[in-house]
């Protein structure tokens, strides 16, 4: 069968039994180093999944695989039953914030509008309707008053909000976020947690990578504990028990109170 880019809508209705997102014995190597090994999982629509693990565990790699930017070394990734080989317009990926040129002369709203660039005809500018969508997205992340500010003038948390708005403006069905809570102020973290909840109520599927147990407990209804391979998978209450964590990390983990535990600071030596 030819892998024609059948419209996403038709694929969804025809194969409604297919899982939204799935990996099948997925392994990804960077040169000789194995970032991810034999990962098989399925993601259900409308869920909030936390990929939890220490630095270098392969969380970002798995997100990139879902985003279609990290090709599998072995195994495959399916989106709505079709093999995912390149970025899909319905899957929005928000990388860690280090990629942007902060001195770039672009305002907050222009940065958000770039999220719509692919869907806007080449021979016209952004129209009122598109601007309104961008403003709405900025409203969702509480950045409306700063829409015309140059992006470099924002704080780290504000910049992360803008990138979330840039993702929201395209209304993808799947939202992938890499360390959304890192380097971000507490009000922004709380805003993200609220947004995750309301987005998942709208049927949007959220997968985020973190090493933060607190945010996982507060927002996710599923935790996948990763360290090169899947170590544990289930609801936070089950996976994040002291018992599972210490078994998973060979007893080399100390959790300083469930609410504030951070794996990378909790003394894991893997």
């Amino acid at each position, binding site marked *: 069968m030819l892998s024609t880019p059948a419209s996403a809508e038709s694929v969804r209705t025809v194969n409604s039994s297919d899982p939204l997102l799935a990996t099948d014995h997925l392994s990804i190597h960077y040169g000789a180093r194995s970032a991810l090994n034999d990962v098989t999982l399925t993601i259900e629509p409308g869920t909030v999944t936390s990929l939890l693990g220490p630095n270098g565990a392969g969380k970002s790699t798995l997100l990139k695989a879902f985003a279609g*930017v990290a090709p599998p070394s072995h195994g495959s990734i399916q989106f709505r039953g079709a093999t995912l080989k390149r*970025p899909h317009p319905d899957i929005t990926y928000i990388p860690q914030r*280090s990629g942007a040129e902060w001195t770039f*002369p672009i305002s907050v709203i222009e940065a958000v509008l*770039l999220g719509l660039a692919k869907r806007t005809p080449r021979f016209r500018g952004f129209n009122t309707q598109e601007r309104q969508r961008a403003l709405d997205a900025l409203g969702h992340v509480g950045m409306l008053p700063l829409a015309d500010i140059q992006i470099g003038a924002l704080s780290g948390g504000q910049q992360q909000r803008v990138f979330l708005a840039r993702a929201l403006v395209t209304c993808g069905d799947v939202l992938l976020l890499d360390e959304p809570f890192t380097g971000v102020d507490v009000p922004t973290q709380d805003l993200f947690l609220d947004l995750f909840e309301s987005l998942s109520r709208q049927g949007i599927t959220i997968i985020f990578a973190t090493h933060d147990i607190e945010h996982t407990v507060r927002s996710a209804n599923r935790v996948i504990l990763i360290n090169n391979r899947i170590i544990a998978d289930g609801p936070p209450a089950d996976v994040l028990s002291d018992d599972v964590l210490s078994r998973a990390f060979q007893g080399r983990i100390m959790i300083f109170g469930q609410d504030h535990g951070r794996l990378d600071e909790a003394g894991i030596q893997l």
Partner: protein
Amino acid sequence: MIDQLLEPWQFAFMQNAFLAIIIVGITSGIIGTFVVLRGVGFLGDALAHAIFPGLAISFITGGNIIVGAVIAAIIVSLLIGALSQHQRVTNDTAIGVLFVGAFALGIALMTSQTAFQRDLTSFLFGSILGVTRENLVTITVVSAMLLAVLYYFRREITTISFDRTFAAATGLHIWRYDQLFLILLALTIVAGLQIVGNVLILAMLITPAATARLLTDRLWLMAALSAMIGAFSGIVGLYVSWYQGIASGSAVVLTATVVFFLAYLFAPNTGIITPRARRALHHPNPEHHDPVDASSMLHKP
């Protein structure tokens, strides 16, 4: 005064030169905006030198110089891209190796033909006498084409310049757009070559755009200002060149440099001198902050 301004325009070659430098100023100002924002000035310098063998070969064989230069630019830019794919060859290294190697090859070719010694100098430093009507047409066509391509791909090029990680995440082929940008850059350099010369064309790419960056925080306004500053420097520079008898390229570049330093010192918001003078005038108390100034609501990262 009016007479002095009009005098050079009596000559056809000066009319060509003025029109050419205006077009080159506009084009290199706009392309230069992205060169400055992406911080690829070294690449621009390298390309300007690396097209030299193409010039030399077309010169010796009597072919079209611009075609020769464009072919050389495309070959060199593809080679830079290909070499830097190697794990142990960084982009900078690839540029450095090809830049000097190709330049040396060009000089070797040129100096092998003793008849072209004078032309070598004019290629390196520009020559207003060299612009023919035919050259002017070529410069116009090349500039119009590359600005049209830039307009067509403006969002992609803006996205990869602003946020490469995001660009990759949305499925943009970064490598392809980098190559496209290299080719646009090479064409800009070729278009400006005859007036400004090989060595100084970099200034036409960097200086007006850098000046515009001091004046605005808006991308397209920056491009527009950069184009205007480029054209303005070109016009003033040609007059200086005409009346002072100095090489046109250096006169144009020196004018642009002066404009840059004026902006650096006196730009309304970012100038080194202006804000202090204004603060002293309006806010004798240095603790006072303007209540509508966004920076008082925000903290820089």
